[in-house]
């Protein structure tokens, strides 16, 4: 290995650890967010809102059916009056609102997510900077050398050799003094030390401009005047950024990162909670929209058909029974929404069974996990449903091997390999309902990789609460 590649290796090592740290940080922050008051209240609020809107729509429908029922004593007339109500326009509008609910949220597009990621990264970068600046500040010489490196090109370009001989020592002296002041400011126990440090760093960046302007007072010469956009803008800003990056790349930050000594900033915590809430909202709204379509709108359409047939046959009993049955459903529209909690083996099989005949599925569940029964089990089912749908619909897979195995005391790992010819949308960086469900359930601990013969999906999630 050549010696020149060592600093690069060190840099790559720092970035690698930073990336890993970022991942762990987000995972922990997401896990905390799920337990936060904000998330729990958002979750409850959404459930209540959907329940309220559904009940309101169903009650309005009951009222409109009741108004036209038994008014004429003529089945055909009554049928004609009821039919328009059974189109369920209000419920249809509700499902449309539910479908667009998650996608209206800020940051649910790829662009929005990326912008937010950059913002969060900047905020986390500030925390890393603040921590390392206090625990392992840069040396004075580092402050001085960075500025000297920045100002050397203008000095060479705009000064004669003699002037450079004068300018350099003065500059070194001024910069060293500034570095001394910066170190002092940082060493103070002032609560504003970091803010003062930032101001001082920024002001220090103006030293070359100030010294050049002073020089111009004593010896005016347009040829040796530094361009103001260099010394007044580029040098101070570059100095500020370089110093901060250098501080973050300090070897000590590697230790902090490795040991997870950096906590999420409150901004990061708030933003992650928002993301988790959005994912939850979108997933839940989608489930409700599908439920309303499958269980209520479908029933309205079937009732419309039944009434039409009964009316043509003059069958009052069937006609009335169909309306009574519909009203009974509308009075309690969400009765079948919340499924019972089952054990993990039953849940997984209930998700896989419908696919048999379309796909060849090999399943392994660790013996110890089969009887686990809690509210997270349904989420295991949702993940499996999503990944099988992906394999089949998107990847055109014909075979899936699925393993649900223990991973530590509390976690499980869901590993699926298939023979998909096409990579799933998540692999291609496309953001959809699947991504939201995977993120929500695993707190970001999932991956999709293309393997030789298809796709491998891995997701780790907490199963034992």
């Amino acid at each position, binding site marked *: 290995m050549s010696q020149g590649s060592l600093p690069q290796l060190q840099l790559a090592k720092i970035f690698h650890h930073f990336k890993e740290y970022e991942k762990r940080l987000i995972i922990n922050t997401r896990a905390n967010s799920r337990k936060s008051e904000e998330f729990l209240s958002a979750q409850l609020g959404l459930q209540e809102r959907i329940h309220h809107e559904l009940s309101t729509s169903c009650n309005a429908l009951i009222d409109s059916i009741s108004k036209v029922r038994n008014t004429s004593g003529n089945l055909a007339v009554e049928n004609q009056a009821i039919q328009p109500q059974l189109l369920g326009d209000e419920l249809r509008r509700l499902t449309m609102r539910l479908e667009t609910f998650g996608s209206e949220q800020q940051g649910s597009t790829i662009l929005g997510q990326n912008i937010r990621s950059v913002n969060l990264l900047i905020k986390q970068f500030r925390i890393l900077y603040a921590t390392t600046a206090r625990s392992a500040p840069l040396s004075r010489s580092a402050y001085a050398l960075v500025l000297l490196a920045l100002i050397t090109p203008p000095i060479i370009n705009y000064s004669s050799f003699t002037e450079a001989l004068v300018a350099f020592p003065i500059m070194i002296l001024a910069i060293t003094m500034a570095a001394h002041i910066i170190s002092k400011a940082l060493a103070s126990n002032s609560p504003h030390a970091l803010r003062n440090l930032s101001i001082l760093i920024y002001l220090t960046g103006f030293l070359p401009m100030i010294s050049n302007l002073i020089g111009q007072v004593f010896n005016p010469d347009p040829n040796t005047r530094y361009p103001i956009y260099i010394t007044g803008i580029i040098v101070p800003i570059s100095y500020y950024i370089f110093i901060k990056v250098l501080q973050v790349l300090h070897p000590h930050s590697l230790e902090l990162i490795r040991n997870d000594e950096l906590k999420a900033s409150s901004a990061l915590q708030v933003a992650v909670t928002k993301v988790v809430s959005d994912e939850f909202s979108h997933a839940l709204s989608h489930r409700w929209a599908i439920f309303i379509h499958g269980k209520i709108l479908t029933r309205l359409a079937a009732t419309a058909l039944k009434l039409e047939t009964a009316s043509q046959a003059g069958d009052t009993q069937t006609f009335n029974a169909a309306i009574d049955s519909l009203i009974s459903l509308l009075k309690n529209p969400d009765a079948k929404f919340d499924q019972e909690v089952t054990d993990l083996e039953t849940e997984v099989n209930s998700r896989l069974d*419908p696919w048999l005949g379309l796909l060849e599925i090999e399943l392994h569940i660790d013996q110890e996990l089969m009887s686990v029964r809690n509210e997270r089990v349904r989420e295991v089912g949702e993940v499996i449903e999503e990944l099988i749908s992906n394999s*089949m619909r998107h990847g055109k897979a014909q075979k899936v091997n699925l393993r649900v195995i223990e991973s530590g005391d509390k976690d499980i790992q869901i590993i699926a390999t298939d023979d998909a010819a096409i990579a799933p949308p998540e692999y291609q960086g496309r953001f959809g309902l699947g991504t939201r469900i995977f993120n929500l359930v695993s707190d970001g601990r999932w991956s999709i990789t293309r393997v030789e013969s298809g796709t491998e999906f891995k997701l780790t999630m907490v199963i034992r609460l």
Partner: protein
Amino acid sequence: MGSKIKQSVMMVEDDEFTRSTVKAALEGKGLNIVHDTSSVKDAIEYAKSHRPDVAVLDYNLGKGPNGIDLANQLRRIQPNIAIVLLTAFLDPAQLDKRVAELPAGSRYLIKHSVTKIEVLIEEIKEAIKSAPAA
């Protein structure tokens, strides 16, 4: 109304009320409903062994595959099967963004437009006409 449908029809619908209502209405019009089920697996097994001429499928079949997944599989088993897809969704992408393409010649019918069974019967006739030749 045109000629009577003599072909055998299989129905797949996960809502029992809807399934029995549509089945009764179709039988009332003289259609030969040879099999009705809520299960995709059962529908596939039936198609393999009995080769029905027509499949009337619900799009949203609950957990697991949807009607389009099933329709495509049925076409693989029986390339000339006529398919009518019944749905409560105006846009199939509402159920799932990863909607596969409907098999050629299939008919897609919004459920609330089927207040008269004749509408469905007409669609079945169209599906039979446009299904690939055997």
